[in-house]
Protein backbone atom coordinates (compact mmCIF):
# COMPACT_ATOMS: atom_id res chain seq x y z
CA UNK A 1 0.00 0.00 0.00
CA UNK A 2 1.36 3.40 -1.06
CA UNK A 3 0.01 6.63 0.45
CA UNK A 4 0.90 10.20 -0.54
CA UNK A 5 0.07 13.02 1.89
CA UNK A 6 0.17 16.80 1.57
CA UNK A 7 2.77 18.17 4.06
CA UNK A 8 4.17 16.41 7.15
CA UNK A 9 3.03 12.90 7.91
CA UNK A 10 0.83 12.26 10.93
CA UNK A 11 3.09 9.50 12.19
CA UNK A 12 1.08 8.19 15.15
CA UNK A 13 -2.13 8.06 13.12
CA UNK A 14 -0.53 6.33 10.12
CA UNK A 15 1.30 3.72 12.21
CA UNK A 16 -1.81 3.03 14.31
CA UNK A 17 -3.92 2.56 11.17
CA UNK A 18 -1.36 0.18 9.66
CA UNK A 19 -1.04 -1.75 12.93
CA UNK A 20 -4.82 -2.12 13.25
CA UNK A 21 -4.96 -3.47 9.70
CA UNK A 22 -2.35 -6.19 10.23
CA UNK A 23 -2.37 -7.13 13.90
CA UNK A 24 -4.96 -9.92 13.58
CA UNK A 25 -3.50 -11.40 10.35
CA UNK A 26 -1.04 -13.68 12.14
CA UNK A 27 2.12 -11.83 11.08
CA UNK A 28 4.93 -12.08 13.61
CA UNK A 29 6.88 -8.97 12.63
CA UNK A 30 5.91 -5.36 11.85
CA UNK A 31 9.02 -3.28 11.22
CA UNK A 32 8.46 0.41 10.50
CA UNK A 33 11.05 2.99 9.46
CA UNK A 34 10.18 6.64 10.15
CA UNK A 35 12.21 9.39 8.46
CA UNK A 36 12.31 12.68 10.43
CA UNK A 37 13.62 15.96 8.95
CA UNK A 38 16.72 17.10 10.80
CA UNK A 39 17.65 20.71 11.59
CA UNK A 40 21.02 21.02 9.81
CA UNK A 41 22.82 23.48 7.53
CA UNK A 42 20.36 26.24 8.43
CA UNK A 43 17.36 24.69 6.67
CA UNK A 44 13.80 25.33 7.85
CA UNK A 45 12.65 22.01 6.46
CA UNK A 46 12.46 19.99 3.25
CA UNK A 47 10.04 20.04 0.35
CA UNK A 48 9.19 17.30 -2.14
CA UNK A 49 7.85 16.81 -5.67
CA UNK A 50 6.65 13.34 -6.62
CA UNK A 51 5.94 11.76 -10.01
CA UNK A 52 3.18 9.39 -9.04
CA UNK A 53 2.84 7.10 -12.12
CA UNK A 54 6.44 5.83 -11.98
CA UNK A 55 6.49 5.82 -8.16
CA UNK A 56 3.44 3.54 -8.19
CA UNK A 57 4.95 1.10 -10.72
CA UNK A 58 8.26 1.08 -8.79
CA UNK A 59 6.35 0.35 -5.57
CA UNK A 60 4.19 -2.36 -7.22
CA UNK A 61 7.34 -4.18 -8.40
CA UNK A 62 8.67 -4.16 -4.81
CA UNK A 63 5.32 -5.37 -3.47
CA UNK A 64 5.60 -8.39 -5.79
CA UNK A 65 9.11 -9.13 -4.43
CA UNK A 66 7.75 -8.88 -0.89
CA UNK A 67 4.78 -11.12 -1.69
CA UNK A 68 7.16 -13.81 -2.94
CA UNK A 69 8.55 -13.87 0.64
CA UNK A 70 5.06 -13.81 2.25
CA UNK A 71 5.69 -10.21 3.31
CA UNK A 72 3.79 -6.95 2.71
CA UNK A 73 5.23 -3.46 2.16
CA UNK A 74 3.58 -0.26 3.38
CA UNK A 75 4.78 3.23 2.51
CA UNK A 76 3.70 6.83 3.08
CA UNK A 77 5.47 9.93 1.71
CA UNK A 78 4.89 13.66 2.02
CA UNK A 79 4.38 16.04 -0.90
CA UNK A 80 5.19 19.74 -0.53
CA UNK A 81 6.75 21.34 2.53
CA UNK A 82 7.83 19.36 5.63
CA UNK A 83 9.23 21.46 8.52
CA UNK A 84 12.18 20.32 10.64
CA UNK A 85 11.44 17.72 13.31
CA UNK A 86 8.42 16.34 11.46
CA UNK A 87 8.21 13.25 9.26
CA UNK A 88 8.40 13.08 5.47
CA UNK A 89 8.60 9.32 5.00
CA UNK A 90 7.40 6.10 6.62
CA UNK A 91 7.82 2.61 5.28
CA UNK A 92 7.16 -0.72 6.94
CA UNK A 93 7.45 -4.42 6.27
CA UNK A 94 4.99 -6.94 7.68
CA UNK A 95 6.12 -10.54 7.62
CA UNK A 96 5.65 -13.85 9.43
CA UNK A 97 9.36 -13.86 10.28
CA UNK A 98 11.61 -11.12 11.71
CA UNK A 99 14.71 -11.89 9.61
CA UNK A 100 12.87 -11.55 6.29
CA UNK A 101 11.35 -8.24 7.38
CA UNK A 102 14.67 -6.76 8.59
CA UNK A 103 16.44 -7.57 5.33
CA UNK A 104 13.53 -6.40 3.21
CA UNK A 105 13.17 -3.02 4.95
CA UNK A 106 16.86 -2.33 4.41
CA UNK A 107 16.87 -3.34 0.72
CA UNK A 108 13.61 -1.50 0.07
CA UNK A 109 14.74 1.80 1.65
CA UNK A 110 18.11 1.65 -0.16
CA UNK A 111 16.39 1.20 -3.53
CA UNK A 112 13.84 3.87 -2.61
CA UNK A 113 16.66 6.37 -2.11
CA UNK A 114 18.27 5.43 -5.43
CA UNK A 115 15.27 5.05 -7.73
CA UNK A 116 11.95 6.42 -6.46
CA UNK A 117 10.96 9.44 -8.61
CA UNK A 118 10.89 12.01 -5.81
CA UNK A 119 12.72 15.35 -5.83
CA UNK A 120 13.95 16.94 -2.62
CA UNK A 121 14.42 20.65 -1.93
CA UNK A 122 15.92 22.40 1.11
CA UNK A 123 13.70 25.16 2.52
CA UNK A 124 15.97 28.17 3.06
CA UNK A 125 14.53 31.64 3.78
CA UNK A 126 11.16 30.33 2.61
CA UNK A 127 12.53 29.29 -0.80
CA UNK A 128 12.92 25.80 -2.29
CA UNK A 129 16.51 24.94 -3.25
CA UNK A 130 16.92 21.67 -5.20
CA UNK A 131 19.12 19.24 -3.21
CA UNK A 132 21.09 18.34 -6.36
CA UNK A 133 24.26 17.27 -4.55
CA UNK A 134 22.36 14.73 -2.44
CA UNK A 135 20.35 13.34 -5.37
CA UNK A 136 20.93 10.15 -7.32
CA UNK A 137 21.22 9.77 -11.10
CA UNK A 138 18.66 7.41 -12.62
CA UNK A 139 19.49 4.61 -15.05
CA UNK A 140 19.97 5.89 -18.60
CA UNK A 141 20.64 9.51 -17.61
CA UNK A 142 22.17 11.72 -20.30
CA UNK A 143 20.39 9.95 -23.17
CA UNK A 144 19.19 13.19 -24.78
CA UNK A 145 22.30 15.30 -24.18
CA UNK A 146 23.85 16.63 -27.39
CA UNK A 147 27.12 14.99 -28.47
CA UNK A 148 30.19 17.02 -27.54
Amino acid at each position, binding site marked *: MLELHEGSLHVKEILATWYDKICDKNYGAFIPFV*GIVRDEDGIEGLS*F*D*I*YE*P*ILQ*SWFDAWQEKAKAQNAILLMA*HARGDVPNHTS*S*YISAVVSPKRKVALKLINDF*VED*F*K*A*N*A*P*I*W*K*YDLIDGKRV*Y*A*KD*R*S*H*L*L*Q*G*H*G*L*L*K*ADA
Partner: protein
Amino acid sequence: MAKVEFLGPIGRPSLDVDISNLNELKDYFKEDKELQEWLGICAVAVNDTLVCDLNMPIASEDKISLLPPVCGG
Protein backbone atom coordinates in the same frame (compact mmCIF):
# COMPACT_ATOMS: atom_id res chain seq x y z
CA MET B 1 2.15 15.57 -31.41
CA ALA B 2 4.05 13.80 -28.63
CA LYS B 3 4.15 15.56 -25.27
CA VAL B 4 7.38 16.26 -23.34
CA GLU B 5 7.13 16.77 -19.55
CA PHE B 6 9.95 18.36 -17.53
CA LEU B 7 9.67 16.86 -14.04
CA GLY B 8 10.74 18.11 -10.61
CA PRO B 9 13.20 20.98 -10.43
CA ILE B 10 13.57 21.59 -14.20
CA GLY B 11 10.60 23.94 -13.90
CA ARG B 12 9.52 24.23 -17.53
CA PRO B 13 6.00 23.92 -18.94
CA SER B 14 5.32 20.80 -21.00
CA LEU B 15 5.92 20.93 -24.72
CA ASP B 16 4.29 19.34 -27.82
CA VAL B 17 6.78 18.05 -30.40
CA ASP B 18 6.42 16.47 -33.83
CA ILE B 19 9.00 13.65 -33.74
CA SER B 20 9.13 9.98 -34.73
CA ASN B 21 11.93 8.81 -32.40
CA LEU B 22 14.06 10.00 -29.46
CA ASN B 23 17.01 10.80 -31.73
CA GLU B 24 14.88 13.55 -33.26
CA LEU B 25 14.10 14.89 -29.77
CA LYS B 26 17.82 14.95 -28.95
CA ASP B 27 18.37 16.96 -32.14
CA TYR B 28 15.41 19.24 -31.32
CA PHE B 29 17.02 20.23 -27.99
CA LYS B 30 20.63 20.54 -29.14
CA GLU B 31 20.70 24.38 -29.35
CA ASP B 32 18.99 24.87 -25.97
CA LYS B 33 22.04 25.54 -23.78
CA GLU B 34 20.18 25.88 -20.49
CA LEU B 35 18.35 22.61 -21.05
CA GLN B 36 21.57 20.80 -22.06
CA GLU B 37 22.77 21.14 -18.45
CA TRP B 38 19.70 19.21 -17.35
CA LEU B 39 19.80 16.69 -20.20
CA GLY B 40 23.24 15.47 -19.09
CA ILE B 41 21.77 14.31 -15.76
CA CYS B 42 18.18 13.47 -16.73
CA ALA B 43 16.79 10.00 -17.35
CA VAL B 44 14.04 9.60 -19.95
CA ALA B 45 10.71 7.78 -19.66
CA VAL B 46 8.28 7.05 -22.49
CA ASN B 47 4.72 6.49 -21.27
CA ASP B 48 6.07 6.15 -17.69
CA THR B 49 8.72 3.50 -18.45
CA LEU B 50 12.42 4.43 -18.31
CA VAL B 51 14.16 3.95 -21.67
CA CYS B 52 17.78 3.80 -22.85
CA ASP B 53 17.43 3.60 -26.67
CA LEU B 54 17.49 6.71 -28.86
CA ASN B 55 16.00 4.73 -31.76
CA MET B 56 12.81 4.09 -29.83
CA PRO B 57 9.85 5.02 -32.06
CA ILE B 58 7.60 7.79 -30.74
CA ALA B 59 3.93 8.09 -31.72
CA SER B 60 1.80 11.24 -31.59
CA GLU B 61 -0.05 10.18 -28.42
CA ASP B 62 3.14 9.28 -26.50
CA LYS B 63 4.28 11.04 -23.32
CA ILE B 64 8.00 11.61 -22.81
CA SER B 65 9.17 12.55 -19.30
CA LEU B 66 12.56 13.93 -18.29
CA LEU B 67 13.58 12.87 -14.76
CA PRO B 68 16.40 14.71 -12.94
CA PRO B 69 18.37 12.96 -10.15
CA VAL B 70 16.10 11.82 -7.30
CA CYS B 71 16.20 11.87 -3.52
CA GLY B 72 13.19 10.73 -1.55
CA GLY B 73 12.78 10.40 2.19
